[in-house]
């Protein structure tokens, strides 16, 4: 099984044998990979019944828990790494979730789409309407993505909260890196993968 491109990048940042919490783990692809290849004991949180079933069938530890409710049941510093892929923008309180990630884990790894990507800017600039694309297919009233941000916004939040950005990888929607998006990430990068800590 080949791993989704962003997960392939993330797994390289996770130490073998570590303790990992995956917020919004989907079908548990990352945790399965980490378990099978890196002896990682992990847990995923998920609310989609179908995805939870898939996790169960694959022997992935999955907990039915809504990230928008408190994560108070997880103790401080109880995990090495807390991962959240493509969910930050769907949280009611993204800042609280980010804080919680770094309370629970030593490190956090996040991915989210960049709303300042040139295509979004072009769409909004020329049409004067909220961007809709194949990558972000929802209209404004039914999108789960209620808190879009840009790379700059995110990094500003990190600075305000004294969160260190350890790594940042800017990629396109197929998670390929290009020299262009490295040059001008906030304009040309579509998805960022951040590794953060306190």
């Amino acid at each position, binding site marked *: 099984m080949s791993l989704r491109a962003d997960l392939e990048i993330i797994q390289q940042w996770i130490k073998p044998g570590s*303790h990992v919490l995956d917020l919004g783990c989907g079908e548990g692809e990352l945790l399965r990979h980490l378990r099978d290849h890196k002896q990682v*004991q992990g*847990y995923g949180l998920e609310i989609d*019944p179908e995805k*939870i*079933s898939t*996790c*169960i*069938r*694959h*022997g*992935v*530890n*999955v*907990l*039915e*828990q809504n990230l928008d409710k408190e994560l108070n*049941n*997880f*103790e401080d510093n*109880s995990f090495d790494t807390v991962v959240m892929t493509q969910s930050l923008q769907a949280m009611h309180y993204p800042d609280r979730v980010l804080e919680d990630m770094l309370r629970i884990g030593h490190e956090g790894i996040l991915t989210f789409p960049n709303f300042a990507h040139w295509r979004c800017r072009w769409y909004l600039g020329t049409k004067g309407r909220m961007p809709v694309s194949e990558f972000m297919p929802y209209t404004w009233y039914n999108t789960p993505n209620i808190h879009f941000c840009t790379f700059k916004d995110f990094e500003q939040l990190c600075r305000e909260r004294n969160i260190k950005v350890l790594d940042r990888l800017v990629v396109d929607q197929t998670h390929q890196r290009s020299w262009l998006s490295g040059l001008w990430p906030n304009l040309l990068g579509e998805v960022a993968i951040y590794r953060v800590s306190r």
Partner: protein
Amino acid sequence: MSTFAADSVGLVTPQRHSFSEPLQLACGKALAPYELVYETYGQLNAAADNAVLICHALSGHHHAAGYHSAEERKPGWWDACIGPGKAIDTNRFYVVSLNNLGGCHGSTGPSSISPDTGKAYGASFPVLTVEDWVHSQARLADVLGVQQWAAVVGGSLGGMQALQWAISYPERIRHCVAIATAPKLSAQNIAFNEVARQAITTDPDFHHGDYAAFGVIPKRGLMLARMVGHITYLSDDSMGSKFGRELRSEQLNYDLTSVEFEVESYLRYQGQEFSGRFDANTYLLMTKALDYFDPAAAHGGDLAKTLAGIQAQTLVMSFTTDWRFSPARSYELVNALLAAKKQVSYLEIEAAQGHDAFLLPIPRYIEALSGYMNRIEVAS
């Protein structure tokens, strides 16, 4: 010619085993001799690594699947989940289901004849705990040649036994499936049990538990106990949709005693039916076992510490409208397992049926149980 469905275990015959070595109990007494009645479905494989123990809840028994005769109207109590190709697949697993000690379905209990007196034990039958049951089940496992269970599965009081197995015999259980249960009862839960016990013990026919000597049973008390229990097993929604405020006749009678609402009639029927088939002392004993269950008490109330030694992977499931064993209670267990860094999965199943949901074929529940059980590795 078989008259049973292809996914039924078909005709089953209860078996029994007599144990002569005394069983030391938590109360300080020892019980000997005693008998356990049980059923098995499927075949124990050569590696003896495919055995699954089913633990029953308050009013359950050994007859979990299949039929005792072609004429039997209803199959065993968990037939929805046990059988060839079902969630607990008897093509893969050797399933063992017993009637717990103290029960009234064939295992030694208060209504059994005491070898010392030649009369029914009655009030003199020792009070049992979940831990005592687990020890008695371990002895049964020895008899059956099961060194380690692939899984111990139970709902409600049965889930407590599954959890106790993981704690008491960590090396003898690979998977613990704890459904609609709690690591201990709440005050409210104990209160409901106390109402049930009061109903029984204040029945004039109770005779301090020795009703057998008087040739009577405290039917009224047992009926009341079941009625109050039954209310707590259902949700407000399920009672509402099942009965609403439906009346048995066209209009109100304006009297104080007649059965007017459908829900009254239903409860009375349930209570009456139950009081004809269940032993009052067993009911008292089962509710006490529920109340006493608190494995963390031995570790200063620290459940995570209590679970530190367990090796089993655990699946915890709860049901949204279950208020007798609410999802929050299951989550206490999940959080302790997390804190102890144990392998655990948790599902909160959307279901309208309250606590009773754990006995019902709710698609998502069955699918999850099936998915979990099917990936348990066993030798072929």
